[in-house]
């Protein structure tokens, strides 16, 4: 350990720093773990998550790769099958499409297809989402797509606490776990509760309790939903904010419990509405909770366009706090 790794005593940190501390902790804990991906080493990570780790752990454990998503993701799968515990970083989920074959046809199928002889204990991290004027090819939200695939676990840390503590149980999991880190959140700052030392990656988490309406959401939309709930409170509308945080397998128990209490629900999802994770949740609520609902399920999703560059158009394309507030008002106090 060198001087650069010494840490400040404060628990206040950015989401980026939380991601880094999680990786650093994992590398110290297990010699089988290494980080591999584009620009994770010399550059320090496209979003600076791994800055300084190359100096601390060396090039075998912080492994820069060529621009070859299929090969280095597939190599992560093979390395996991061979006994290592890799963390593969795909720079952004937009590039994960170049490795989709490996993720879907190998990581997600081999445990089952081999009759349980091989597990794929692999973590793949990737940045997701829009909101930084990066235009269509760098603003996709593909976590809902991956949540379609049996054999994968899909996590979406929407808080600094989850960014800090989700990696450890993800690495301990015998299955391939995909972690989607939202690009807008990397700079978010917050205080880590010193009493919390881990999180349960099987469970959704209620971030704010309320009796009138459940807002089901994840990722950066969580922050918008929390802001919306705060804006609704003075008007006497108490919104409950449920952070889904695990998109596969869905924690339907927590979701159903919340909606059964509030009897109204809004799903906020940065993915496109058609075929999205919000569609899946709405369908499950219709199947299993139909008679508990006092109002139709509402969904706020990205508009069905490639996310555009110009700020005003991008803002209009993504879920907005004002929309959540308006929807909640209409649901709770119908005309």
């Amino acid at each position: 350990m060198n001087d650069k790794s010494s840490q400040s005593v404060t628990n206040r940190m950015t989401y980026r720093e939380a991601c880094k501390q999680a990786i650093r902790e994992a590398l110290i804990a297990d010699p089988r773990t290494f980080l591999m991906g584009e620009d994770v080493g010399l550059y320090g990570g496209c979003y600076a998550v791994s800055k300084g780790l190359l100096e601390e752990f060396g090039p075998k454990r912080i492994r820069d790769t060529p621009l070859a998503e299929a090969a280095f993701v597939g190599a992560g799968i093979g390395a996991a099958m061979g006994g290592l515990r890799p963390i593969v970083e795909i720079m952004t989920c937009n590039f994960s499409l170049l490795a989709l074959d490996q993720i879907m046809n190998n990581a997600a199928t081999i445990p089952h297809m081999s009759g349980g002889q091989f597990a794929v204990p692999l973590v793949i991290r990737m940045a997701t989402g829009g909101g930084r004027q990066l235009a269509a090819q760098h603003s996709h939200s593909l976590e809902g797509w991956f949540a379609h695939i049996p054999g994968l676990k899909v996590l979406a840390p929407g808080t600094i606490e989850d960014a800090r503590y989700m990696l450890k149980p993800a690495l301990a999991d015998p299955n391939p776990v995909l972690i989607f880190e939202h690009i807008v959140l990397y700079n978010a700052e917050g205080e880590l509760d010193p009493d919390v030392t881990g999180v349960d990656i099987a469970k959704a988490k209620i971030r704010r309790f309320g009796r009138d309406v459940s807002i089901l959401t994840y990722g950066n939309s969580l922050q918008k939903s929390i802001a919306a709930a705060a804006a609704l409170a003075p008007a006497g509308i108490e919104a409950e904010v449920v952070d889904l945080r695990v998109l596969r397998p869905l924690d339907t128990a927590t979701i159903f419990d919340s909606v059964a209490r509030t009897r109204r629900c809004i799903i906020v999802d940065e993915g496109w509405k058609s075929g999205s994770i919000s569609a899946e949740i709405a369908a499950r609520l219709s199947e299993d909770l139909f008679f508990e609902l006092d109002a139709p399920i509402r969904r706020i999703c990205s508009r069905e366009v490639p996310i555009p560059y110009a700020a005003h158009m991008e803002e209009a394309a993504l879920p907005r706090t004002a929309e959540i507030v308006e929807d909640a008002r209409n649901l709770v106090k119908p005309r």
Partner: protein
Amino acid sequence: MSDKPHLGREHGQHLYREMLRIRRFEAKCAELYQAQKIRGFLHLYDGEEAVAVGTMQALEGRDAVVATYRDHGQALARGLPMGALMAEMFGKVEGCSRGRGGSMHFFDRARRFFGGNAIVGGGLPLAIGVAMADKQLRPGAVTACFFGEGAVGEGAFHESMNLAELWDLPVLFVCENNLYAMGVPLEIAEAETDIFRKAAAYRTPAEKVDGMNPIAVEAAARKAVESIRAGNGPYFLECRTYRYRAHSMFDPQLYRTRKEIELWKERDPIPRMQKWLVENHMVSADELHKIDAAVETEIARAVAFAEEGGWEAVEALECFVLMDEVPE
């Protein structure tokens, strides 16, 4: 088969027996497919036996194998029990993948057989990772990665070749060049039809090998594996071979002539090996008969094992979608 004269009697017979096992097994599979005992896609290895058999002679138990969807020969030569393979194709729970994989997806953890992969080129990145793990956890182990010449059109092939050399990984690339990617002839698919030359772009040592000659394949594989074990990084073999049967059971073979198939059959490794063993007094008529009988018995037992096997409980359908632990 005159290029390697120092071949012992026992080993010569072993090579012959191993190839014959595959040939007869495939004939039985075709028969059972007609009888609808085996369903789905079935890709047979007839004609290519010398490649798998020759390569496996150079491998040890500690080594790993990544196979293709045409994996029967690779699996048998690696030592997977024939009964477990047949049971797999019958869809039985005693199958080597508990009936979840079928013909294209034989797996065997104990024998480090990392699966038949049915996405062309899909096994190559996997082999890179297995070799990364071995380099750290089992120094000296080699990963043999099989793929057809069709796979070299895929980006995954080039990406994997680059990583293997760049990271100095113990990978033996074994290209089974049977001249057709399904029905696409090599010459209309590749600008460079000498596949082994592609390895030069990645600075990986490479050779072309007569894939119809098990002794030549074995010699090349031994040399390659020795180099890999010595820490010299990956090695590439292009084995020129031919499949006698259709690509799968649904292929009318409009893309090639009967004459071409007959010409390649003149180079069939099995009768040639037999002839060579006889001429060099390395096998007696009685021994040939015994080999033949033993192979027939093994196949009959494999079929009986598959017939007698049970079905996986439907309640277990979702078992292994998510694993509870990493198998050790």
